[in-house]
C-alpha cells in the first residue's frame, strides 16, 4: 500500500511513492539512492544511520515513512557547503577521525548538531553527545580531537572564540 510522501531532502522538495512501513533509512538508501547514511545495528544503538529530522539528529532506522509528510530531512550529503567540506568533515579528514568510515556519517551528523548547541565543549561533553555513535575500529580519541578542532574552527569563523585548550 504505497502512498505519495512529500518532504524536503537536503534542501530540495522531494516526492516518493513508498509504503508507510518503509524505514526512513531504507527509503533514503534503496528508494532514493542517497547512500551516505549507513545501517549498523538497526535498533537505535549505534548511530550510524543518524540524519536530521526537522532539525534534530535521530536514528533513521527507527523512523517510519508514514510519518514523513512535510518533514525536513538532512543527510550527510547535505553537510557540504557547495564544494567545500563543512569544518566538521574537514577536521575528521585532517585528524584521522575516520578509520573504516562506516560510523563516520553518523558521527559527523551528531557532532555538527552538538556543536551548534555547545560551541565550546569539554572532551567529556563531546563523549556524552557521541555516546549513541559507536566506532568499532580503534576508539574515540581521534574522533574527539576532530570534534574539538572543528569546534575551534567554527568559533574562529563565528569570530568570537579564543583558541581552545
Amino acid at each position, binding site marked *: *500500500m504505497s502512498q505519495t510522501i512529500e518532504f524536503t531532502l537536503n534542501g530540495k522538495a522531494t516526492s516518493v511513492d513508498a*509504503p*508507510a*512501513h*518503509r*524505514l526512513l533509512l*531504507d527509503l533514503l538508501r534503496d528508494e532514493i539512492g542517497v547512500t551516505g547514511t549507513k*545501517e549498523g*545495528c*538497526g*535498533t*537505535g*544503538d549505534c*548511530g550510524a544511520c*543518524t540524519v536530521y*529530522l526537522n532539525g*534534530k*539528529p*535521530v*536514528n533513521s*532506522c*527507527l*523512523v*517510519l515513512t*508514514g*510519518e514523513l*509528510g512535510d518533514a525536513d530531512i538532512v543527510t550527510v550529503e547535505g553537510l557540504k557547503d557547495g564544494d567545500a567540506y563543512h569544518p566538521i568533515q574537514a577536521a575528521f579528514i585532517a585528524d584521522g577521525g575516520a578509520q573504516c568510515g562506516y560510523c563516520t556519517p553518523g558521527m559527523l551528523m*551528531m557532532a555538527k548538531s*552538538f556543536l551548534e548547541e555547545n560551541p565550546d565543549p569539554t572532551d*567529556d561533553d563531546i563523549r*556524552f*553527545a557521541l*555516546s*549513541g*555513535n559507536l566506532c568499532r575500529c580503534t576508539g574515540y580519541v581521534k574522533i574527539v580531537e576532530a570534534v574539538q578542532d572543528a569546534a575551534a574552527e567554527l568559533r574562529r569563523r563565528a569570530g568570537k572564540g579564543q583558541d581552545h585548550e
Partner: protein
Amino acid sequence: MKRTEPLEFHQPTSLAEATRIMLDGGPGGYFLAGGTDLVIAMKEKGLVPKYVVDLKRIPSLSGIREEADGGITIGALTTLREVEISPLVVGRYPFLAQSAAEVGSIQIRNRATIGGNMANATPSADVAPALLALDAKARLAGAGGERVMELKDFFRGPGQTVAEPGEILTELLIPPRHPRLVGEYIKFSPRDMMDLAYIGVAVTLTLAESDRRCESVAIALGAVSPTPMRAPGAEAVLLGQVLTEELAEEAGRKASEECNPISDVRSSADYRRAMVRVNTKRALLNAAAGNGPVPWTSRRDRRYA
C-alpha cells in the same frame, strides 16, 4: 535486520479522532509516539501491528508548562530530550531532567517521548521513579472522557497499563511542591551510557529549615518489581526524623525488603536488592546534601568506591 511488515498508517489531528480510529479498528492497533519501542518491537520481536495510529500530529499533546498553582504539566508527546534540557525542569527538578538524560542517546531522546516511556510500562523506565517521587499524576483521554490518576496506579505490570482500548495518556502532572524540595535519581547500570538500569532509585526530601527534619519523603524504585514502585516502608523510616547516615542505611535496608526483583540476564534478584539498599542510602544522603545530580563522568568512581 528484519524489516517491518506492511501496515495501515493513520495520522489523526485530534484526540477524539485518534480514539475513534482505535475503537473502530479493533484489536491489533498500536499508538505510535517516538517509535523507539514500537519500531524495535516490529523489527526485533516480530510484532506485526494491524494498524498504527501516529499521535504526533495532535498539537495539544506536546510541551511543558507551569500551571498557575506552581505545578508542572508535561504533554505526553514531549520528547525526553525536551524534558532533559527544559529550563523549567532543569531549574526545578534537576534529577527529573537527569533521569530523562539517562535514556539511550541524544538521537533516541529526540524521538522517545515521556508518555511513550510511561505507556510502554517497562519496569526499568528511567523517568518513572523520578516522576513517582514527585507524586506525578497521569491524565488519560478516551471514549468515556478524561480521567486523572496517580501515575503509580497507571502501571499494571510489565508492558501493561490500565488504559482502556482507545484511551490515550495525554499529560503527566507534577503537583506543586515545596520550594525546598530536593531530589536525586541514581541509575545503577553496567555502562555509563546506552544501557538499561540494573536498578533505579529516585528520592525527594523536604527538610525543615529549623532542625532539618524530613517534612516530606518519597522513595521510588525502578527495575525491581513488575512496575515502577514507591517504597512506603522506607519512607516511613525517615518521615519526621533527622536524616543521618544510620537512618539512610535503615531506609535503604527497608527499601530492599519492600521491592520484588527478578533474576535475569542483567543481574540476580539478590544483587538488585543489595544495590537498592546501597543506592537508596546514597540517593538520600546526596539529595540532603543538596549536591545536585552526580555527573556521569564520576559514576565509575562511585560504583567501585
